[in-house]
């Protein structure tokens, strides 16, 4: 193949090109305009003297360099690389100026002098020489290149190549299939014989029955069993090979029933409540004649598996939640407002514009519906069936949200990953279509998984100590969808995955019996993308969970506002008011006298309370147990825009030396101190007292530390570090370059004040 051929030296650089090898490319960069290539990656086209636009206002910060299109990415290699920003997340496989081809949403070429613009697709012609190339990315970046000094023909060729290669004709042409094969063979020597199982991956990926067995045991689902009728995907291509079903249903019956369900998807057990209620998901039954009968059998079986034999509650998600097109169109709109429209323009009516996108409304709808399901499972101890036409979209969101609310296990990092694996990957969510990696059918594209991550963020925002991972983790996970190197997001169904990986293993001469986790790893092997140090950005210092800092004697210590002195009398008015004026907040159902009906409307009518409202109000009146049931606050005022995700690239929205990260910074430092003290204690206690080793003052080795930010030291700067911005660990610099925005940065803050703009000469502004 191509990569075997050594590359020619370019006219810019007469040194022999570096051999492409991951290990070597990670070494400190040698200053020359050579792309860092991954194993199997080849340069398709390139053009020199390209200007990458950094700021919309002036070209003074723009970077000059070479634009390259490979079979994996668009890469820009700046002539003079600016000093890398400290503490910025650095990707092991992608440089700061790289964009994977699968991450491209739209490739737009512009000719300024002719006033022409064209969105490029695959195999297209371009009748003008582009002066500009704008890349709209799926991770919401907008990157702009100018060709004013570049050779017009080569510029055009690179643009066409980018457009062409970002529209792969077939799934197996995605770069992951090339890369992972090479990587497997190249790193083979590095791997010790019989090394750790699954390549050290701790996340259960639910491809074998032991993973399901463990889950059944963990949740105490004794009336449920692992059934293997779908082995070799004999029954349904979109179901996993192992399915958990009620013990009372025999394989024979299940096989019989399966043909009536859409996609042959027999009901799928998700989770069991300690009280015995079960969460089950299922597709609809196409044949109306059989529907009642089969449903009856399934429901009976589920009821039998409940210790109290309680009735099953069915929730038809198609009827009460937005569909995938609604979600897609909301996302397109919210993206438009957040990153594409000029900052000023969207500032004008920001709140109503955000409302009009309906994104937050959808987020809230999914959370709300999931909370309703929680009420049935927990409040009523009833088993629930989530029903959806195909059981592969909305059910994924709701079933995973319900489990996140009910089961603290899924709020740990490993637990969360196993949840995605179980309810999305193995349950047959069509990642390939929904991500539209092949850019074939736009009707099928829908950011359902991002919607789910946003819902998780809302919960995390409300319960910051309940999750082991951070919003950085969620954001990085969403970005990983657009890097086609991991098996997680590439396929539509478990069967498709199995087939492709089997063919892949055959083609790449991977020995049979090798674990697919090793030869084509899922995204959960984060060491593929990030250094150990950078991975610590995933750790939430506030997390209360296994091994977290504050659990003493099995009890979570909580600190209530205590009054030190006896000034309580003065406080009384205020403390009561802080508690909603409700001292005993644990109200019961109100007695309703006839007086109520006489109330004038302006003095707050009292409405009837449903049992589920009652359940929620009761729950909210008690302090939340971060390791117990968590219900999100669903007042519209408490559902917020996920700023890190939507605004991280927007330079105008970036708070210098501010944002939630400043609190994260402080918390991480404190937790690092705690870790150091704990390791010192271990060192004291560890070996026999006679030979007590001396504690090392530095604490654990720096690469073993859990926290990204180390304990503070007297050498710390007296001012907050510059890299702490609200976008941390991402940088808006050069990642969002919309066209034609005028004015000085300071003027942007102040768009409401039009009048003074005329009286003041902005040119005189000293900024």
């Amino acid at each position, binding site marked *: 193949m191509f990569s075997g051929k050594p590359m020619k030296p370019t006219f810019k650089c007469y040194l022999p090109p570096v051999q492409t090898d991951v290990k070597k490319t990670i070494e400190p960069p040698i200053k020359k305009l050579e792309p860092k290539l991954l194993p199997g990656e080849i340069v398709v086209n390139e053009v020199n003297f390209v200007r990458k636009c950094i700021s919309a206002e002036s070209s003074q910060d723009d970077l000059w360099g070479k634009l390259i299109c490979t079979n994996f990415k668009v890469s820009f290699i700046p002539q003079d690389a600016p000093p890398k920003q400290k503490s910025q997340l650095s990707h092991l496989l992608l440089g700061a100026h790289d964009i994977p081809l699968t991450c491209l949403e739209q490739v737009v070429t512009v000719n300024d002098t002719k006033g022409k613009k064209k969105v490029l697709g695959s195999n297209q012609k371009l009748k003008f020489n582009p002066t500009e190339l704008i890349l709209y990315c799926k991770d919401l970046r907008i990157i702009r290149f100018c060709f004013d000094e570049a050779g017009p023909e080569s510029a055009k060729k690179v643009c066409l190549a980018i457009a062409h290669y970002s529209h792969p004709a077939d799934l197996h042409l995605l770069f992951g299939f090339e890369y992972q094969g090479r990587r497997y063979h190249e790193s083979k020597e590095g791997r010790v014989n019989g090394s750790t199982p699954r390549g050290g991956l701790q996340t259960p990926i639910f491809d074998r029955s032991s993973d399901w067995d463990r889950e059944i045991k963990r949740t105490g689902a004794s009336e449920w069993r692992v059934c293997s009728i779908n082995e070799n995907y004999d029954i349904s291509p979109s179901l996993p090979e192992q399915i958990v079903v009620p013990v009372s249903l025999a394989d024979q019956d299940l096989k019989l029933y399966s043909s009536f369900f859409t996609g042959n998807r027999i009901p799928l057990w998700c989770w069991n409540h300690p009280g015995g209620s079960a969460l089950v998901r299922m597709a609809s039954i196409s044949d109306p004649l059989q529907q009642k009968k089969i449903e009856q059998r399934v429901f009976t079986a589920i009821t039998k598996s409940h210790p109290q034999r309680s009735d099953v509650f069915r929730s038809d998600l198609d009827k009460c939640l937005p569909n995938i097109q609604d979600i897609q169109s909301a996302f397109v709109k919210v993206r438009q407002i957040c990153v594409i429209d000029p*900052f000023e323009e969207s*500032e004008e*009516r*920001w*709140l109503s514009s955000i409302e009009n996108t309906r994104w937050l409304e959808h987020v809230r709808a999914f959370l709300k519906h999931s909370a309703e399901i929680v009420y049935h499972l927990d409040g009523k101890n009833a088993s629930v069936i989530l029903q959806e036409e195909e059981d592969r979209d909305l059910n994924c969101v709701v079933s995973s949200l319900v489990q996140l609310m009910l089961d603290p296990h899924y709020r740990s990092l490993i637990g969360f990953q196993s949840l995605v694996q179980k309810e999305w990957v193995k349950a047959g969510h069509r990642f390939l279509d929904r991500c539209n990696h092949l850019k074939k059918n736009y009707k099928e594209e829908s950011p359902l998984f991002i919607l789910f991550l946003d819902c998780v963020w809302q919960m995390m925002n409300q319960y910051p100590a309940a999750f082991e991972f951070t919003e950085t983790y969620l954001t990085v996970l969403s970005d990983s969808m657009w890097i086609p190197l991991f098996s997680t997001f590439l396929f539509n169904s478990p069967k498709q995955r199995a087939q492709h990986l089997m063919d892949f293993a055959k083609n790449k001469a991977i020995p049979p019996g090798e674990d697919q986790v090793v030869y084509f790893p899922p995204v959960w092997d984060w060491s593929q993308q990030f250094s150990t140090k950078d991975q610590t950005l995933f750790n939430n210092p*506030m997390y209360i969970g296994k091994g977290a*800092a*504050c659990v003493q004697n099995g009890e979570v210590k909580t*600190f209530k*506002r205590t009054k030190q002195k006896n*000034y309580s*009398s003065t406080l009384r*008015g205020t403390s009561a*008011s*802080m508690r*909603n*004026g409700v*001292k*005993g907040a644990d*109200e*019961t159902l*109100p*007695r309703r*006298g*006839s*007086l*109520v009906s*006489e*109330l004038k409307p*302006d*003095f*707050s*009518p*009292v409405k009837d309370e449903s049992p589920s409202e009652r359940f929620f109000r009761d729950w909210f*009146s008690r302090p*939340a147990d971060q390791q117990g049931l968590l219900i999100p*606050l669903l007042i*519209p*005022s408490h559902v917020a825009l996920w700023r890190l995700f939507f*605004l991280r690239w927007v330079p105008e*929205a970036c*708070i210098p*030396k*501010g944002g939630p990260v*400043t609190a994260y910074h402080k*918390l991480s430092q404190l937790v690092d101190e705690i870790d150091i*003290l704990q390791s010192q204690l271990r060192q*004291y*206690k560890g070996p026999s007292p006679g030979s007590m080793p*001396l*504690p090392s*003052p*530095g604490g654990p080795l720096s690469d073993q530390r859990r926290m990204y930010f180390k304990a503070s030291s007297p050498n710390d700067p*007296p001012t907050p570090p510059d890299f702490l911005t*609200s976008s941390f660990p991402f940088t808006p610099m050069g990642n969002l370059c919309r066209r034609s925005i005028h004015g000085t940065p300071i003027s942007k*803050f*102040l768009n*409401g004040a039009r009048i003074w703009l005329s*009286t003041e000469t902005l040119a005189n502004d*000293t900024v």
Partner: protein
Amino acid sequence: MSSDGLIPNETVQDMAQDVTYFCPFTGALRGTVMITNYRLFFKSMDREPAFVLDLPLGVVSRVEKIGSASSRGDVSYGLVCKDMRNLRFSHKQMEDTLRKSIFEVLIKFAFPVSNGLQIFAFEYGQVFPENGWKVYDAVSEYKRQGIPNESWRITKINDHYEMCDTYPSTLAVPVNIPDEELKRVAAFRAKGRIPVLSWIHPESQATVTRCSQPMVGVNGKRSKEDEKYLQSIMDVNAQSHKLFIFDARPSVNAAANKMKGGGYESEDAYQNAELVFLDIHNIHVMRESLRKLKDVVYPNIEDSHWLSNLESTHWLEHIKLILAGALRIADKVESGKTSVVVHCSDGWDRTAQLTSLAMLMLDGYYRTIRGFEVLLEKEWLSFGHRFQLRIGHGDKNHTDADRSPVFIQFIDCVWQLTRQFPAAFEFNEYFLVTILDHLYSCLFGTFLCNSEQQRLKEEIPKRTVSLWSYINSQLEEFTNPLYVNYSNHVLFPVVSLRHLELWVGYYIRWNPRMRPQEPVHQRYKELLAKRAELQKRVDELQREVTNRSASSSSERAGSPTRSITPVQTFV
């Protein structure tokens, strides 16, 4: 606290059984009402545990009797409160027509000023370890800023409030302007509020000065002394040859003021000065905006159209304009090293908002608890923000056009800053809420009266307790554990609706579905305790090791003992 739950000098005025409180969230509750000279106390045993409503009468803005002609003979009273809630009660029609309803008693004590009574703050006699009236001393605050220096002096011209009765007695002015000339400047500035120093940059010496509008009038009157005065404010800052005058008003309003004799500085008359209008609306617009906001958030938020409803109140837009103005001032002073003059019409509402917010951005001292108290005492209280008029303490005239939430808006802006810079403030959200609660409660003397002169005349510091006495006696409650005291950290917030948000912890706090907690802070405190505990154990073990090695080395004299590295401690 006494056993009956009353605070010092609080006396029960009336009690009534069988009163119904209509809780907008959970329904009607039957219970007992007690009215004292300080509060309304409602308790219902309908629920387990008992439901309690404890309301300082100062928050009551108006009491309305609603429909006495009901078939069952019930009388209802609606209480509209200044703190974003309405309460409704009802009780049976009095059989004894001579007997007053308990709510008539409430009206008397809720509006003491209108009823010839004393505001409760004058009776409250709680003694605190710290005397909050000592928190602010003008001379020491100027000294902290390095004033007097070669360019600025302290003048005693207003010692007896003769030049300006709404200004403090201690003022800082440019050295080269003698007192005689100050008087002539005063004649040209509305209410005699001449430009005086609020803050000086420790390095560049660029200053923030505040004043009222110039009395330009329709004929474009000029004052040589005023022009010279502004010139000298510019001259004492060697770093810049320019002076920025920030007029907080929209230019149209500023121009309209000419009809009333006021106006703004013309750039012809003031050489080297540049005039900027900040477009902040007047007190009436702000009052209307908050009224709309209350409609949107209380008692319940509609499930749909939340954001557009919020937008239609324009509340966040006003917050944005105020913060944007303050940011421009801070940016001019910090990045441009240029001195600025700030005024609106009278210089006690929008001007106070702008100077104090700019100072918060510029000077980390004001972001400490005590520093913030000093900032309020200085920029708001001593410079005559008319708290009595704007809040209407004890006054039943709820439609008074002078009432306006200017100060609430300022505290909201501060909260917005704490959201964007969670580690930059020593105080927490509870501190800000407490200040607003006691803005209305009339328990403390801090926010009484309209000016320093009035406060002195009423002997407020002698006769009442300061809010800072209460707060500073239990600082722990009000401290932000995440606070990092970085020096020279100037805050440049992003003044965009993308980051501004509704302060739910204040405006929506009555909603029981809203959890009043600061989980991050709480968690941080838990972690601090954990660290302290571990540190203690490590220290103990350390001592043990030291002792053991000391004894073992004495036993085995001569054998080299390893020296003990002290355990690194982090404080």
